[in-house]
């Protein structure tokens, strides 16, 4: 109990504050801290979250050990963190051993439904599948695929290949870079020669920044490679990386549950967010707060127990994924403008409902 009579609950926070994807980590962290501040100041909550932070500094080998440290040395049972799927998969065995829960608030490639993870950002039926369903008839079905060399890029591109070839299209090239590599010349040259209809970019961090800048230069030299004619599509790019992109972001098309100014999700008292990373991290902490609020002792319960006691929240009891809107937006004049949107749909991590997408309607909402 603190001075206000609230229960003090330690909350693990495991984000890399340096390294290749720190812009995303910082966006997530802002969402976490905003939710913590909201809950701590809210008289309707009888809990106060006390963040316990550890910084893996972008090194994938530090995640499991630091996650273990939090669960072993503090009273925290819940950790929010991880950006890459690689780091998430490193942390899950630790969560299993100690009965902890990881709250993961970044888009990912699906095919996972751990009993010890809550997924509050989009999986492929909420990003890639609707994005390609919309893009193929608009731009054509000859695609070039890029990705960082780990599970996110591999699985996104495998799925893209399945969808594109299933629609009678073709994959003209597929190339990967080590995380952190800026060696994009070969990709750009292959794209120049094969002249695809669009590019699906699943690179992360500096590789992606370098790629988008080089592609913008290519567009200046050859009019085929303009956003109108051959756009770059992404399921992981949000506003939080604009500072690293500058003009190179212009024309980029992305899918996600939120873009700056969108309304409706997460339902957070008119709070606005800088990006969907921030929003999804906020939503995660907010939901955890709801599950623990006015339930003394619940902070020591497992995720399964929490969901058994209260199934009314946003987390699907079977998959631990959440219902999310699907927005497709393009960067125009330095901000994402939503061009298609659909109401919240349930996460389907194993695509067990098939590859059929939901119909997207032209966005009629006012976007600031």
């Amino acid at each position, binding site marked *: 109990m603190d001075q206000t009579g609230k229960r003090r609950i330690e909350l693990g926070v495991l984000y890399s504050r340096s390294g290749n994807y720190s812009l995303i980590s910082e966006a997530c962290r802002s969402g976490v801290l905003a939710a913590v501040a909201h809950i701590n100041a809210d008289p309707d909550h009888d809990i106060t979250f006390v963040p316990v932070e550890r910084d893996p500094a972008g090194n994938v080998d530090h995640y499991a050990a630091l996650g273990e440290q939090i669960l072993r040395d503090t009273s925290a049972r819940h950790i929010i963190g991880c950006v890459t799927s690689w780091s998430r998969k490193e942390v899950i065995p630790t969560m*299993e051993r100690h009965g902890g829960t990881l709250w993961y608030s970044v888009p990912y490639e699906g095919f996972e*439904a751990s*009993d010890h993870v809550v997924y509050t950002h989009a999986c492929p039926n909420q990003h890639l599948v609707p994005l390609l369903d919309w893009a193929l008839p608009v731009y054509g079905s000859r695609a070039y695929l890029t990705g960082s060399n780990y599970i996110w890029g591999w699985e996104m591109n495998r799925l893209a290949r399945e969808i594109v070839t299933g629609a009678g299209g073709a994959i003209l090239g597929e190339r990967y870079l080590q995380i952190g590599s800026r060696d994009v010349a070969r990709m750009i040259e292959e794209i120049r020669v094969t002249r695809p209809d669009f590019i699906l970019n699943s690179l992360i961090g500096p590789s992606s920044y370098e790629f988008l800048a080089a592609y913008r230069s290519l567009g200046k030299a050859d009019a085929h490679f303009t956003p109108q004619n051959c756009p770059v599509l992404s399921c992981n790019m949000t506003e939080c990386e604009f500072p690293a992109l500058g003009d190179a972001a212009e024309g980029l098309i992305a899918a996600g549950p939120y873009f700056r100014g969108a309304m409706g999700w997460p339902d957070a008292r008119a709070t606005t967010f800088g990006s969907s990373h921030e929003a999804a991290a906020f939503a995660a902490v907010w939901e955890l707060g709801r599950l623990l609020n006015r339930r003394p002792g619940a902070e020591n319960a497992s995720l399964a127990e929490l969901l058994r006691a209260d199934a009314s929240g946003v987390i699907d009891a079977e998959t631990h994924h959440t219902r999310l809107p699907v927005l497709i937006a393009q960067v125009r004049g330095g901000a994402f403008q939503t061009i298609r949107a659909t109401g919240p749909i349930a996460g389907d991590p194993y695509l*067990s409902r098939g590859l059929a997408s939901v119909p997207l309607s032209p966005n009629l909402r006012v976007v600031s």
Partner: protein
Amino acid sequence: MRRPIRVSNLGQARAIILHRAHATVQNLTRQLTAIGLEAVQVWPTLEPEALGADFVFFDADMGHDEQFPWEPGQSPMPMIALIGSEAPGRVEWALRAGAHAQLLKPVGDNGAYSALLIARDSFDAQRAGAAEIADLRRRLDERRSVVRAVALLAAQGRSEAEAYGQLRQMAMAWRVTFEDAALRVVARFDEGTGADGRHNRG
């Protein structure tokens, strides 16, 4: 080239878990439900309605042949062994029972998805292989018919090579295998001589 695995049609598939009630069954059921399957636990035997299941997970520790409504190794669906004791005798039995993949016990938070995909792929490959072997074996058995058909066609004044070519033409025209064309030629001849024989006797 190896074909890509089928991943997106596990939804609504039915899995039967042949195992006594146990935490392993709970955890496995949780995994299967999250993947989109409907899972049912049964013990100690599979009833005939199990024939309609899409996957069977079976206990390799306490299992025996009489639990299954089919001959060992003849399951009409992919089978996944749940192995606790990694003893050679038990692994041998699980293989003989027809395991297409395995999952180690205690089953926890993961493993079911890859077991499902590997089991189905092995099952499909095994089934395609068996069909191909049966077809090749049948064609091998028809070697005699081919030799006879070529000899019969050659007896009509052609060289052996010409007779062979004629038989190939017939197979193409009839849209049947070379061996089936040979069978038809031989049957036609046998009918002819058979009829002649009866006629001669009469």
